[in-house]
């Protein structure tokens, strides 16, 4: 953990702090509320720069579907402001407080820097799809704007997408503009007990390939006994106006009937259950255990799951139609090797999402890039952070 904490309350001060660090060649660890310090690789830096004091919503126009806020604004504050106008964050970013045992809520900057999206990603896009504009401080201490506050914008290179998911290694986000949408009037789900994961993915594919527009498609390998769902369960969610929810759930139930005995879950049950999916708390990971997130094509999900169950006592949760596999297991290099091999075999990628520091320091927390891309990545990093002062080593050793 870093010794000195800088927590400026203006963008200008963030810029000065980074410029000073660059001039001195002294790396900075970048964080919001530090809830995700246990994420990715530990950063070796004498000082930490936090954006937690850059707080507040700076612009909210419900009828234009946009909201701007400073990077340190706690996510719950944003969600509350949106709820007042019947709107929501489209990508449904998970509240990972439970997973990380954090007390403070995530900040907007942290969620965007980690490109975290929840179950709704499959229907409405990821966090990166809704970042319309950013202001950030590059590694030389310059304030840079990209994008803007309008819904459609192709003016110049899209640095919003480059910065989203860059984990604070390319710039310090100071303000972010998001597209938001009306929250649905109603919701509900269909649950289907399935004999195995492959059947489950087929059930989800039937729903996702139908015109009924599910906004969640998850597979619970152990069911959710607290909700009366025993055994492997496929789950499809509808969010829409009330008459549409009733109609579409009914059609999904008919669609799944040949595969078993689908059950309807009411709005309240559905909301509670999807919260657990969103937070991945159904994994029930113990304190010292590691958590991985594997993204593969949905039909590869069951094979990834089977490979991991064969390798260690893996606990699993599949979202995004089967394509997002959450994995909990022992924080060992052997388990990590099994996860990376399974992700690769499935044609996808992995993130070591949470682990004790020794494992995170020992292994690659993200997949490597092919040499031509790694060379470009190094030049892009230098183009934004020439002295390498921003979060060195956060994503990959030496980068």
């Amino acid at each position: 953990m870093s010794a000195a904490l800088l927590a400026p309350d203006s963008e200008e001060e963030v810029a000065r702090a980074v410029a000073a660090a660059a001039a001195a060649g002294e790396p900075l660890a970048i964080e919001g509320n530090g809830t995700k310090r246990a994420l990715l690789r530990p950063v070796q830096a004498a000082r930490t720069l936090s954006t937690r004091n850059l707080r507040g919503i700076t612009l909210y126009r419900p009828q234009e579907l946009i909201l701007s806020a400073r990077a340190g604004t706690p996510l719950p504050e944003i969600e509350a402001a949106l709820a007042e106008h019947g709107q929501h964050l489209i990508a449904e970013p998970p509240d990972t407080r439970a997973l990380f045992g954090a007390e403070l809520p995530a900040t907007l900057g942290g969620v965007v820097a980690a490109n975290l999206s929840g179950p709704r990603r499959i229907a409405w896009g990821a966090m990166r799809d809704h970042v319309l504009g950013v202001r950030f401080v590059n590694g030389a201490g310059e304030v840079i704007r990209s994008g803007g506050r309008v819904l459609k914008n192709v003016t110049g290179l899209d640095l919003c997408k480059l910065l989203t998911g860059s984990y604070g290694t390319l710039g310090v986000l100071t303000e972010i503009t998001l597209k938001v949408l009306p929250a649905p009037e109603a919701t509900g789900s269909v649950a289907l007990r399935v004999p195995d994961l492959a059947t489950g993915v087929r059930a989800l594919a039937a729903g996702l390939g139908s015109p009924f527009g599910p906004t969640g498609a998850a597979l619970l390998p152990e069911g959710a006994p607290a909700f009366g769902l025993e055994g492997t369960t496929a789950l499809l969610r509808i969010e829409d106006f009330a008459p549409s929810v009733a109609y579409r759930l009914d059609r999904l139930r008919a669609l799944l009937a040949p595969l078993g005995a689908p059950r309807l879950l009411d709005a309240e049950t559905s909301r509670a259950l999807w919260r657990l999916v969103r937070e991945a708390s159904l994994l029930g990971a113990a304190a010292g255990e590691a958590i991985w997130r594997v993204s593969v094509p949905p039909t590869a999900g069951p094979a990834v799951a089977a490979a991991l169950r064969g390798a260690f006592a893996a606990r699993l949760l599949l979202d995004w139609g089967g394509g997002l596999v959450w994995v909990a297991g022992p924080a060992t290099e052997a388990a990590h090797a099994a996860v990376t091999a399974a992700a690769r075999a499935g044609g996808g990628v992995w993130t070591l999402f949470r682990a004790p520091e020794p494992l995170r320091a020992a292994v690659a927390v993200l997949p490597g890039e092919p040499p031509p891309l790694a060379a470009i990545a190094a030049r892009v990093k230098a183009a934004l952070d020439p002295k390498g002062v921003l979060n060195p080593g956060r994503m990959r050793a030496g980068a």
Partner: protein
Amino acid sequence: MIALPPPKPEILARRDAIVAALRAIVPGEGVISAPLELKPYETDGLTAYRQPPLAVVLPTSTEQVAAVMRYCHANGIRVVPRGAGTSLSGGALPLADAVVIGLMRMNRILEVDYDNRLAVVEAGVTNLGITAAVAERGFFYAPDPSSQLACMIGGNVMMNSGGAHCLKYGVTANNLLGVKFVTVEGEVVEIGGRHLDAAGYDWLGLITGSEGQLGIVTEVTVRILPSPEGARAMLAAFRSIEVAGAAVAAIIGSGIIPVALEFMDRPCIHACEAFAHAGYPLDAEAMLIIEVEGSEAEQDMLLGRIREICGRFDPISLRVAQTAEESAAIWKGRKGAFGAVGRISPDYLCMDGTIPTSELPRVLGRIAEMSRAYGLQVANVFHAGDGNLHPLILFDANDPESTRKAEAFGADILRLCVEVGGCLTGEHGVGVEKRDLMGVQFLPHELAQQRRIKGAFDPDWLLNPSKVFPLEGEGAAPALTARAA
């Protein structure tokens, strides 16, 4: 007029050798160098600018594209990638000393995977070609630029193109899973894949909309979506632009996101009506076309709610389609809008700025004032839900004064868009057309930052130069040094 950089004489002098080398890579008809045959490639959708290239090469495989890039890179030859050449911003305009790499012969659908809801296609497949390939199973590819019959997916990726339905389905960037990408050095890399979201930097997001500045895309993996059960449109006409704008805000504010929400002003209504006889109300100042999707009952519910909302704004007419045919009739005028405007004027310039939707009345009012000041007519048709304007400036390209005025008028509109909090381009790209206006939206150090990222991909500035970034300072931006603390 916009300046192009002087050609490199040493490249022009080696023309024959370059053509021969390209022929060795792409045999047969794949290399074009005869002046007459280069004609079709000398311009794109921005027809005011013309420049034949040194040569055109039409590869049929990623390997050939890579070999061409390796050769051009080794020999310091500039390259202009090209899809269908429908860019409205001059993105595909050749340079005299550049080789145009045309992707149109790479037009195969490589794979459709319905279980994972994706299609893998070559860069030269047309936008509509993707939907046509998956329609029999009830799927479609969502982004639908009006040019979709001609424009190609590689061009769509590079322009991050949108369409009438992007209010609900998003633009190209939101519908991609991966691309096969050839670097300026001729290396082939897979970016993304068949899964959602990168673990690491979002290269796919950076490449999308990069206007051929970073590399060449040869294959694209797109998401395909199940078609809705049905869709129907309604038409609502109002007494003023302000009132129509308020109706748009009220619809969005009610929680309904229509799949399409198109706006036409009086001149555009008149032009379209004269052309399409769609029954548009000629006494209206503004008209909306609103489309919803779902089952018949869902369409009725949503159209009923929207009708009720529009009813509060004293509409001149409200027409809800009862059938698919009536719906098509409502769309008929809008779909032919550019052609209709083309009939009342020899030429038009299509602007593409985006504004905050609340600024709509003010901006349209100012555009009307400018129209009077410049003595040039303008017709407005645009995507109202997202504020992406398409003012069509009518002028006569054979009259240099008219052309000069039209360009100045267009630039004033774009400055206005930025001034009210919007941007220069919502979907057509910067290209050469808006290159010199980039300084209106970005500060010099912000442009330098973008140029350095371009330089990280293309250190010698061989890829589509003289586009996107103002010419002064073209080439490697000065290295970034820490600003004084």
